[in-house]
């Protein structure tokens, strides 16, 4: 009977050139996807499906851990002990989400250390939203409400992604994100019900986070490069523009309810479509920030690489300790 070990083998993959049974394998692979079944790590998969998933899951994981920085900046300055405990729990969740996702990526036969190296050397990216600064406490509200809100809109369909380990990680993550969005909205609600200055703070944060948040859904469908293949593979279920529209439709009434104004003069309800029309997105800004020229790109990367290199001695000491314990146990047994 044939068997595999989980960490010593890559998933069986193939391309037209390398696999003589490519046609038969590929047909079975597509049948599973058409039947809305999940592909599991020991299943055959096209080489490009594997590499696409590694890139997407890694980028997602990188975004989670870089995302700890803008909020982490307020851990020591949260306005009450309760707010501080809540924000600590949220930042801790983001670290956890990164770990779930790195774990899912590792089932595709790649090491976490390699993925971190790709992040640190700029070969893999993270979501451009985390390159914006958090100058006021209201930014913590805006991030939870808008950034986590947009993330949820993107992530809920990923709970049904065709790759089993990614889908299962997303189910855990989505359960936890719900708390994140609610705590953010509640911060905005509290500020909006407060003094004039607090209300101005809330509006200012919304003004700064609105456009970057709706850019989180990625380029418009016409300009999106990976979309159709990812749809066919069941990695993506809805287009960027579809998800962006859903987010806008859900969020505009939430802003109105607490008396805040979405900073888009072209935003209006379109009764015919049953959706909001919205203004032109500044894709030049999006591309600029992705290319590295956002307000905080350099700071985020410096902090990440710094944390990794400054933590090296801890990782090394833990390994040395484990080796010593193993040797001691062996000695006692002898």
């Amino acid at each position: 009977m044939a068997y595999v070990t989980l960490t010593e083998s890559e998933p069986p993959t193939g391309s037209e050139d390398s696999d003589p049974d490519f046609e038969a394998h590929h047909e079975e692979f597509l049948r599973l996807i058409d039947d809305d079944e999940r592909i599991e790590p020991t299943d055959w998969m096209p080489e490009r499906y594997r590499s696409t998933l590694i890139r997407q899951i890694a980028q997602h994981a990188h975004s989670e851990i870089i995302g700890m920085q803008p909020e982490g900046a307020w851990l020591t300055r949260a306005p009450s002990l309760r707010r501080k405990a809540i924000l600590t729990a949220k930042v801790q969740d983001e670290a956890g989400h990164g770990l779930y996702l790195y774990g899912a990526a590792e089932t595709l036969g790649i090491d976490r250390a390699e993925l971190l190296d790709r992040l640190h050397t700029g070969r893999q990216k993270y979501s451009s939203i985390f390159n914006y600064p958090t100058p006021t406490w209201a930014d913590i509200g805006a991030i939870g409400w808008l950034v986590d809100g947009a993330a949820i809109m993107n992530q809920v369909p990923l709970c049904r992604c065709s790759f089993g380990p990614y889908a299962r990680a997303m189910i855990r993550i989505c359960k936890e994100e719900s708390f994140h969005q609610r705590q953010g909205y509640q911060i905005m609600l509290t500020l909006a019900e407060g003094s004039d200055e607090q209300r101005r703070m809330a509006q200012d944060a919304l003004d700064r986070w609105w456009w970057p948040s709706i850019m989180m859904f990625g380029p418009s469908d016409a300009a999106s490069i990976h979309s159709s293949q990812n749809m066919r593979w069941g990695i993506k279920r809805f287009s960027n523009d579809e998800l962006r529209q859903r987010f806008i439709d859900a969020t505009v009434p939430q802003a109105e309810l607490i008396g805040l104004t979405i900073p888009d003069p072209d935003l209006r309800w379109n009764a015919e479509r049953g959706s909001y029309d919205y203004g032109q997105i500044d894709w030049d800004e999006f591309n600029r920030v992705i290319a590295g020229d956002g307000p905080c790109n350099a700071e985020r990367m410096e902090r990440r690489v710094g944390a990794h290199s400054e933590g090296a001695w801890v990782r090394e000491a833990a390994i040395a300790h484990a080796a010593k314990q193993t040797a001691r146990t062996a000695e006692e047994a002898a």
Partner: protein
Amino acid sequence: MSADWPLWEVFVRARRGISHVHAGSVHAPDPEIALQNARDLFTRRSEGVSLWVVRSSDITASSGDDRAALFDPAEDKTFRHPSDFELPDAVSHM
């Protein structure tokens, strides 16, 4: 010579898309026979589409004595649950 084969823990994936779940254990002399025994013992009625076997001696388990120390601290952190945040009725689906 000890006649008994080592113990293996068996994990069964009931269908694609869900995790392997612990089902029980089998004795076997090597991984291959462990898989065969697991198949015969736990999947005679189509209970699974995939099996994992792990040497029981390779599993590290938390001690029951540590239960309170490990898990009780989460109990007073109700703010980790969305229900801890009261919102206006109009946005209750958030």
